[in-house]
């Protein structure tokens, strides 16, 4: 029982990270139609932005986190200019390969800058441990779940309570109509990339203390985010959250109760099952064949 509580919290914490990565992926997909295969590298960049600011530059954590997220926001804008603008009218496969190509560049740039040695990012709450029903829970894991919940709440406020967020939703729904309404469409599209980069940055900063981070961590995270997105429902934000938590839980519980070697088969098996039986996912949005 104490094991189970620990596993559940850890699963939720990992799942929160996947959920944030998946939300960033979904925001970009809904707004721009781009299936971003570099989404995992975004998270890796987030972790290594933290490594640069907290370990290399030795900044105190509030400043370091701020600087890392600022760097991520700038990177999101750069990605918009370098990848999205030139390729936006290309076929979906060209864009997929374009994001993969940039992902290769990102991974190898990080490798050049940081080497292949794994890092462990510190957490502001890492000395805190909680005891719940006899189980020792890491304070960081709890903090991750809380931060993720806060982020989701903030996103909800952004999208449903501010004119900026409502504009972004308008662009996602009908870009032509949004343009006719006088919205600055390109600015809003850029903003969705920046938002995705920021969310990935937060995910990376929170993931760093849970794993030994190395520059090849991006791809597995992207795969988990994809699985989360499919299971939750392609293009659905609540779906990304539920899917992310589900993938995280199935990974942690599967590793401990089923088989650590085949833990990933569970989420991918379920993803394929969803694709076959209910391709619109749990939070089925209308299937539109954007491909």
């Amino acid at each position, binding site marked *: 029982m104490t094991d189970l509580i620990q596993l559940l919290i850890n699963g939720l914490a990992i799942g929160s990270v996947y959920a944030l990565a998946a939300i960033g992926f979904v925001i970009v997909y809904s707004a721009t139609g781009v*299936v971003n*295969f570099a989404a995992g590298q975004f998270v890796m960049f987030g972790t290594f932005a933290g490594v640069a600011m907290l370990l290399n530059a030795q900044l105190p954590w509030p400043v370091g986190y701020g600087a890392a997220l600022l760097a991520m926001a700038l990177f999101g804008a750069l990605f918009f200019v*370098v*990848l999205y603008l*030139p*390729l936006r009218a*290309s076929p*979906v*496969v*060209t864009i*997929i*390969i*374009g994001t*993969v*190509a*940039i*992902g*290769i*560049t*990102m*991974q*190898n*740039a990080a*490798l*050049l800058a940081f080497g292949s040695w794994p890092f462990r990012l510190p957490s502001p709450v890492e000395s805190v441990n909680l005891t719940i029903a006899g189980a020792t829970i890491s304070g960081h894991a709890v903090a991750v779940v809380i931060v993720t919940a806060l982020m989701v709440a903030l996103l909800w406020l952004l999208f449903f309570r501010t004119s900026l967020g409502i504009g972004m939703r308008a662009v996602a729904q009908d870009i032509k109509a949004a343009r006719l309404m006088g919205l600055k469409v390109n600015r809003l599209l850029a903003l969705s990339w920046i938002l995705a980069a920021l969310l990935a940055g937060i995910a990376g900063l929170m993931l760093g203390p849970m794993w030994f981070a190395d520059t090849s961590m991006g*791809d597995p995270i992207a*795969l988990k985010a*994809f*699985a989360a997105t*499919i299971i939750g429902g*392609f293009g659905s934000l609540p779906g990304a959250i539920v899917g992310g938590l589900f993938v995280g839980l199935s990974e942690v519980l599967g590793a401990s109760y089923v088989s650590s*070697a*085949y833990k*990933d*088969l569970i989420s*991918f*098996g379920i*993803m*394929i099952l969803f*694709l*076959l039986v209910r*391709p619109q996912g749990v939070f089925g949005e209308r299937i539109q*064949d*954007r*491909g």
Partner: protein
Amino acid sequence: MSIRVPLLVGAVILIAGLTLSMLLTDYHLRLLNLAALSAIAVIGLNFAFGYAGLISLGHAAFVGAGAYGVALLTTLFAWSPWLALPAAVAGTAVLAMLIGVPLLRLKGHYLALATLGFNVSFSIVAANWIEVTGGTNGISRIPELQIAGHALTDERSYLWFALLVLAVSAAVAALIHGSRHGRAMIAVRDDETASSMTGIDVPRVKLAAFVLSSVYAAVAGGLFAFHMRFISPEDFGYAHSITYLAMLVVGGEGSIVGAILGALLVTFLPEWLRFLGSAYLAFFGLFVLAILIFLPSGLAGIRRPRSFRRHGLMKWPALVAASKEARP
């Protein structure tokens, strides 16, 4: 299409390859071997993606199925390589059929992610089913191919053999492209509804393209196993699927020549970028991106006149407008 084009394609491959094989060092011959084997796989992918428009991110799993097939049959059951190869190819075709029937109902990025999931699942099984696949240690001591008592152990003679297979593969692909089957695949990609209204059994054509692409992949995989004589799961990860797709798009999707050019370029590009030192892979990504942006129809599209690019750049609204303007 006449028989001349396929023959010409095959002949050019053989002559160019044989000339190169006399000039290059062993290391570059090795790369050329890998490029030739990739080219076979990419010509296969061209059926699924270039013609029928199926975005498959699981191609490397079929290459792996072919490779593991021959590796298991030759090492575990001591089959002759010449028997193991067709058996592995047939087995892969059956696998593709089993995977394809449910998965090909999906379209666009749904199909892309489903095939990606299939590739990842393949890697997980290959890495963990240790009793059969040897896990991450892979399978070694795969026997070499022999032709009339001559073992293909050195890079040069293997290259000759690989080029022969590539030439035949390309010629067969050109024949299929010019046949009713090729036209049906291209029609399905253009417009599924109009295809079915032309009597084409759309699901069947898609499945045929998918299985055909897996057959080419399995041939490439089997030859890869006989070339390296050692295989492990990392040779067939989903990253390789994306590489195959990148080769096809960079070379020019929908074109057999493009598939070969793309395989060559993407295999040799990292070598040519070696002067950049340890940064070469970072530049590789940017280079591929630059090709996507500046050569949207790939290398094969460079010399083709605009009107002949099979891209359907002009859609009907543009044509309606154009025809209205043209009217007196």
